[in-house]
């Protein structure tokens, strides 16, 4: 087990390193003078350009630049945002909690509902519920995430006026008690969370259903039935523990998709998180911020994958030895 952990850790570190290198080169091999991209002031004098070049270390050789780059990274220096005029890392940290709140809630919700629905559809395989459910999941899966958000806003916020159009709080609102504030937060959170959950559910349902169907056709299920195990326990104690294993891997693999979804949903709902931040950085051509977010998010995803790998190993006894 320990050998496996070390090996996976090594792979993870290697992956992160490749990402760092990729990030470094992306910026520098893109067309256009890097300095001009940084400054965006066409009227700047040549001397100022020189000074700025020195300041950013851009007139040194590539390996040296890379060394500085790594050093800065280890210090937590991801650069300076143009738009916010603050260190990139600070901006990211500020916008991280809303994203975690939204993404975390939606993911937990969709996993639970996905598993429950997947079990129901598998158990009632071929029935009307199954067919309808599968079709809906497939259709949901084919919709662009932002479009689902747009539909939700149009129906529930604009047409029905039940929920606010966006944001995490109403501008200029006054909250006399913490409960009212919490209520407001929930009202603002409802649509984005449901939207996000809808997007994720489709895939979870499909995978859970398929996983359970495969498990149910295994020989050991027949043995359990032969032993006289009750139908409820057949599902709970024999089928589910086996069927849940692929879900762990799937959720890990899906993290990249979740990030993509977060960017879209937060943009549509003006939710002040990392996703929206990336959109703002995009439209403002704030390259340091853009790359900083990319790096941060990617490292998080790679790290999470590593944890999921360990979790899977821990859960599956076949793999423990």
């Amino acid at each position, binding site marked *: 087990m320990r050998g496996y952990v070390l090996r996976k850790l090594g792979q993870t570190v290697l992956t992160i390193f490749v990402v760092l290198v990729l990030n470094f080169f992306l910026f520098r091999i893109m067309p256009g003078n890097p300095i001009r991209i940084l400054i965006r002031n066409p009227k700047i004098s040549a001397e100022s350009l020189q000074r700025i070049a020195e300041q950013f270390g851009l007139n040194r050789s590539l390996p040296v630049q890379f060394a500085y780059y790594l050093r800065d990274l280890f210090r937590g220096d991801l650069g300076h945002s143009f738009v916010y005029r603050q260190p990139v890392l600070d901006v990211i940290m500020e916008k991280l909690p809303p994203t975690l709140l939204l993404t975390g809630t939606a993911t937990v919700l969709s996993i639970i509902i996905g598993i429950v629905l997947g079990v129901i559809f598998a158990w009632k395989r071929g029935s009307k519920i199954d067919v309808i459910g599968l079709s809906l999941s497939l259709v949901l899966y084919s919709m662009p995430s932002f479009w689902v958000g747009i539909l939700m806003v149009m129906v529930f916020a604009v047409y029905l006026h039940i929920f606010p159009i966006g944001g995490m709080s109403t501008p200029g609102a006054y909250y006399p008690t913490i409960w009212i504030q919490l209520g407001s937060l929930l009202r603002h959170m409802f649509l984005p969370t449901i939207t996000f959950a809808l997007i994720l559910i489709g895939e979870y349902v499909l995978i859970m259903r398929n996983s359970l169907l495969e498990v149910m056709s*295994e*020989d*050991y299920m*027949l*043995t*359990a*039935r*032969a*032993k*006289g*195990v*009750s*139908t409820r326990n057949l599902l709970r*104690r*024999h089928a589910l*523990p*086996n069927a849940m*294993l692929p879900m762990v891997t799937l959720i890990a693999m899906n993290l990249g998709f979740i990030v993509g979804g977060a960017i879209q949903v937060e943009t549509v709902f003006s939710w002040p998180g990392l996703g929206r931040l990336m959109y703002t950085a995009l439209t403002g051509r704030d390259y340091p911020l853009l790359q900083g977010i990319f790096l941060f998010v990617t490292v998080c995803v790679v790290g999470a994958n590593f944890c999921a790998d360990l979790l899977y190993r821990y859960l*599956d*006894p*076949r793999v423990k*030895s």
Partner: protein
Amino acid sequence: MALLEVSDLTTYYRLKEGYVRACEGVSLRLEKGEALGLVGESASGKTTVALSLMKLLPANASIVGGSIKLDGRELVAATEEEMQKIRWKEISIIFQGAMNALNPVRTVGDQIAEALKIHEKLTDKEAWQRTRALLERVEIDPDRVREYPHEFSGGMRQRVMIAMAIVCNPRLVIGDEPTTALDVMVQAQVLQLLQHLREEIEMGLILITHDLSMVGEVCDKVAVMYAGQIAEYGPTEEVFTRPAHPYTRALMAAFPDIEGERELASSIPGNPPNLLYPPPGCRFHERCTEAKAICREAPPRTITLNEHHYASCHLLDRQVESCRA
């Protein structure tokens, strides 16, 4: 009263194209402590009979006729809840290829103890004690009780299956090709074990196999199945030395004698019939070297050859005109 009495059992599988008549008019009888061998080619219906006895058929199969009486109690009409109580406590089964028959994410001891906890109201501690004792009986180190199936070899897993099958001291155990995937030495061990257990607890045994030599060693009676029907049925020694049905005779011929002259083992040319559309007459007639016209047209009756020996063949039917020698 016989331990097991099966009359005219008929089981069909429902496919998109129609019904597969996997098991047609099967009748058997087993006394307490007896061992019955059920032999036949692959897809002759042996497993279907086994699954029917325990009512473990898949969703698209059902028993369409006949009766199964265990100790006089009718099983065909029993509900699923009733069967859940009968299964394992009265009849248990050892599946072929225990590779996948054990749940990979639960320990071996856990799976054996589970059967005990369902059928006998034992505490955890008692159940584990019984489990350990049982593992010892099947010659597995009882300290391995908390290990997972993949940590055991194939032969050991089969022995775990056997332990699990007898844990509730059932009246009848069905062994569906219990030794097929094992090497010869382990086979012998497993068979010996089954014999000991039979003697100890007066357990009935139905041994499903295509290995005639095993049947000869272990079983008191043998039923030969072909294409879902019983071709011949009787005491092992008699069926082996004086086979009446042409199929049985061909089977015997296919097993070379270890003594005597060296000769090529003969095989039976052709393939078993498609049970979706079985032939109207005798199901074996297409491959039978002695088939007559009537064999193609009408299904044969079950002829009583002597007190316990039956066969299903027109050639033996003295009432059939065209078969008079």
